[in-house]
């Protein structure tokens, strides 16, 4: 019987009715009295010097209130980067200024040149178009290898090269890794591209700000995953607004996938403009603008080498990666290809030696930052692809080569050569589960049947581990983080026994209002409907680092649990007083306090009421009220893992790939709500299939974005994906958070791309194209067909 209550129950989402009735409150649904609108004039070239920016004609147009240019924001701070990466030679990352509006130079297509504030959105857009702009164009720097050449034009004239950093992980291990390659029986080498993606949450970004002149307080409503982080970054580093005078609200947010972590210039623009103009200012991104301004994801070019012994045991691997930063750094741009990438790049394997080198490169393209998985999809992809290639070369099955190299269940905690300690896991169990649920034993028959229909059928595997649940603050501080990554919670018991939970995590589709209530209900033994979860408002929540990196359950949920435990402890003391018993004799379960060995008992709501109506109270010993806060800072990351299988059919006539089956066997540790977890798996896998087969961000030679709308950038539609079979019954609880949870938000996007590509390559090789060892994503019909013609 599945649980119907608390942790482990598939509780229906309390968020759903408001969304289903059209009663959600997204940022663009917020309209403030007297509100003006901003439209931005954006650069239509990728690189150049602004020679003329004449706003006079535009300023005279109907409805225009004021036009701002770069000069109006010169005193503002640079849009911040939250992590400082140190290069192999000890130097710090290059960190050029990232202005809110261009300051004489444009460095990527879509960079904002000016912002027009007008009475209506249409008037603002009309006037933005009427601004006269002349830009002396430069040949843009687009290719990363070209960008690193000595004679390349620096994207930032203040820098003498386009290299942001050259990072080696772990540099001290490099010599030993290289030596292992010298002596290896076999070395498999693969060069690959991890294609640039656009996150594309369905809700475009939006920001609306107001300023109260009387109190000197600003309020910013924004589509962000982390309102406190925006308050801190924008307040302290960009606009110099004290935090006590700045409130940031992230109401219902329509998906994010990383792209709404960062502090964007539009947020700072509307905030300052609202203050200067004395009226609310709103900006709503169009989808076209989102393609030009939302941070994009991935974009790695990698050479990976794997050294093996004669049995197929991994001896060492090393990578050399170019990671595209685009034109500017955003909040997590530099941590994504480094500390979110290297530590889990070794996967679930016992490989004793590893070295990861990443050079980050500035180019005249839209900035790149974290996208669902952030560094871990890139690491998983390169390793899982090179393993398949090694298996082909050595005549091993893709299952055997993985299984024989797995860390064994009795080897945890396992110290990897990439600095992290995997606390728990059972990789054999998830692989066995995958083989079971996918009926892998029946694959050959399915392949033969497909061949009868003229289709090439293939099966691809991924077995992976990720490093998420960001993060232990002390460790990341040593690694260059400029913030801590704990989470906070308040659990407030109301006088009649209901509970309000305030969390620093932010839900933008994850269903926290439901799962966090389950955590508290599990502890208090009261009905979930008596518990409300409040999030997304810096005026309500003490502090918070927000939601990304699959951290909300493992860090935010743990903080809620700890605060709830404090509440129970205090309530138990009070109950003991009320029942005239020794505290040690009072136990609490299912919402009842009882004195052991007696028939005395008190229910939850009676104790809650007594805390607020303290007529009979241990005065002097306890304060009235029943509310506790907690901060949770984990001692380690969490390490979710899984085994994924993808089955495809390729049409040899067209190169078109049809995903006919996808199975995911995951170990997320303890699962709070299996229904919601399965939904996260589905969505992540669909995004990974999208990256593998369809999605690609393409710039032409002049730096124009060719894939700038849903007509050119192909996110999966309903008929492009199969129904999925997902499983999370293999559970090795996390050892270092009190819930035992491991995080599930990014798993699908991490594990699925290599499974898809491995399946296509398997299909082609099984169809007689033995020379094909790799095709770069996205595996469009054209690319697959061309590969078949060549091999």
């Amino acid at each position, binding site marked *: 019987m599945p649980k119907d209550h608390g942790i482990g129950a598939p509780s*229906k*989402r309390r*968020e*759903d*009715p408001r*969304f*289903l*009735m*059209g*009663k*959600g409150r*997204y940022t*663009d*649904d917020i*309209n403030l009295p007297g509100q003006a609108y901003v439209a931005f004039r954006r650069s239509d070239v990728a690189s150049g010097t602004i020679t003329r920016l004449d706003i006079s004609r535009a300023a005279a147009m109907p409805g225009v209130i004021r036009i701002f240019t770069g000069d109006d924001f010169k005193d503002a701070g640079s849009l911040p980067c939250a992590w400082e990466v140190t290069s192999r030679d000890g130097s710090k990352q290059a960190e050029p200024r990232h202005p809110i509006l261009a300051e004489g130079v444009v460095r990527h297509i879509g960079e904002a040149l000016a912002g027009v504030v007008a009475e209506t959105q*249409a008037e603002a857009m009309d006037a933005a178009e009427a601004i006269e702009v002349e830009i002396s164009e430069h040949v843009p720097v687009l290719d990363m290898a070209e960008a690193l050449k000595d004679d390349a034009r620096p994207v930032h004239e203040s820098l003498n090269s386009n290299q942001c950093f050259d990072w080696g992980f772990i540099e001290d291990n490099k010599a030993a890794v290289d030596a292992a390659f010298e002596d290896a029986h076999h070395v498999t080498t693969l060069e690959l591209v991890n294609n640039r993606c656009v*996150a*594309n*949450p*369905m*809700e*475009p970004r939006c920001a609306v700000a107001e300023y109260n002149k009387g109190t000197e307080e600003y309020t910013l409503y924004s589509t962000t995953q982390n309102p406190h982080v925006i308050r801190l970054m924008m307040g302290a580093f960009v606009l110099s607004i004290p935090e006590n005078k700045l409130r940031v609200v992230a109401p*219902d*947010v*329509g*998906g994010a*996938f990383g792209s709404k972590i960062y502090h964007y210039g539009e947020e700072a623009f509307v905030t300052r403009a609202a203050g200067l103009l004395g009226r609310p200012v709103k900006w*709503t991104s*169009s*989808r*076209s603008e989102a393609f030009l301004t939302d941070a994009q994801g991935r974009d790695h070019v990698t050479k990976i080498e794997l050294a093996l012994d004669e049995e197929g045991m991994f001896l060492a691997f090393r990578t050399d990666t170019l990671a595209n930063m685009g034109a500017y750094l955003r909040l997590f741009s530099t941590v994504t290809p480094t500390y979110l990438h290297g530590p889990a790049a070794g996967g679930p394997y016992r490989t004793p030696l590893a070295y990861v080198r990443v050079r980050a490169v500035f180019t005249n393209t839209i900035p790149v930052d974290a996208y669902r998985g952030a560094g871990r999809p890139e690491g998983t992809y390169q390793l899982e692809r090179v393993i398949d290639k090694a298996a082909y070369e050595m005549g091993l099955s893709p299952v055997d080569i993985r299984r024989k190299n797995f860390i064994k269940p009795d080897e945890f905690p396992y110290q990897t050569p990439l600095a992290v300690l995997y606390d728990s896991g059972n990789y054999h169990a998830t692989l066995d589960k995958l083989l079971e649920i996918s009926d892998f034993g029946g694959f050959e028959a399915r392949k033969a049947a497909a061949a009868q229909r003229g289709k090439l059928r293939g099966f691809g595997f991924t077995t992976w581990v990720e490093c998420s649940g960001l993060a232990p603050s002390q460790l990341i501080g040593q690694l260059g983080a400029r913030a801590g990554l704990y989470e906070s919670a308040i659990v407030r018991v109301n006088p009649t026994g209901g509970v309000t939970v305030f969390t620093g995590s932010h839900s*933008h*589709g*994850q*269903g926290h209002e439901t799962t966090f209530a389950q955590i508290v209900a599990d502890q208090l033994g009261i009905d979930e409907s008596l518990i409300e979860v409040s999030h997304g408002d810096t005026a309500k929540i003490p502090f918070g680092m927000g939601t990304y990196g699959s951290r909300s359950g493992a860090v935010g949920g743990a903080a809620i649990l700890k605060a709830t435990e404090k509440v129970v402890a205090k309530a138990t003391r009070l109950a003991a007083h009320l029942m005239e018993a020794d505290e040690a004799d009072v136990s609490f379960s299912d919402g009842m306090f009882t004195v052991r060995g007696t028939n005395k008992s008190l229910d939850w709501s009676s104790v809650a009421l007594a805390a607020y109506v303290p007529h009979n109270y241990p005065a002097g010993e306890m304060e009235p009220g029943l509310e506790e806060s907690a901060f949770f800072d984990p001692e380690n990351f969490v390490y979710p893992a899984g085994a994924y299988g993808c089955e495809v059919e390729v049409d040899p006539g067209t190169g078109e790939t049809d995903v006919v089956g996808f199975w995911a066997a995951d170990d997320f540790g303890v699962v709070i709500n299996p*229904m*919601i977890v*399965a*939904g996260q798996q*589905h*969505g*992540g*896998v*669909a*995004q990974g299939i999208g990256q593998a087969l369809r999605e690609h961000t393409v710039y032409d030679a002049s730096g124009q974005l060719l894939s700038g*709308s*849903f*007509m050119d950038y192909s*996110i*999966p*539609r*309903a*008929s492009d*994906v199969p*129904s*999925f*079979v*997902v*499983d999370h019954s293999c559970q090795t609880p996390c050892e270092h958070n009190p819930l035992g949870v491991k995080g599930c938000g990014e798993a*699908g996007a991490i594990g699925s791309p290599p499974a898809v590509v491995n399946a296509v390559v398997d299909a082609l090789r099984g169809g007689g194209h033995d020379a094909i060892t790799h095709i770069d994503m996205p595996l469009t019909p054209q690319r697959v067909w061309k590969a078949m013609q060549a091999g």
Partner: protein
Amino acid sequence: MPEITISVNGHAVSADVEPRTLLSGFLREIADQTGTHIGCDTSQCGACAVHLDGSLVKSCAMLAVEADGADVTTIEGMTNADGSLSVIQAAFVEHHGLQCGFCTPGMIMAAAALLQENPKPSEAEIREHLEGNLCRCTGYHNIVRAILAASGQDVAPIAAE
């Protein structure tokens, strides 16, 4: 500016509108029906889908003046008369057919239109019908399941987890 009147969820809404005003803008800003969402500017995503005189349309793909005199139903008009969730809406709750909720109004409008014309659609027909509605959260799995369930059919062929 032309004055137009559109019946929105049974209530007549009249306004002077700029000729370039889209129906989606009229619904959100003039009729205050903010459940109709704007997810793109190329009529690809379907978050703005509504029923116009009983037909499924993308409200960003027509001008408000073109809808003068029409009957429009938005997501706000889709609950039962007593305010409770309709069969389709309830199926989305039951089968976790939504996450962030932004595409959801369009999905409900599309699903209702499908079941109107094809009361027992197959999984493939459902997926085909959703061609004009993008979702980035769910991978469509549970949306398809919810629509199948709302049609009274067995959802077992589509795995629960």
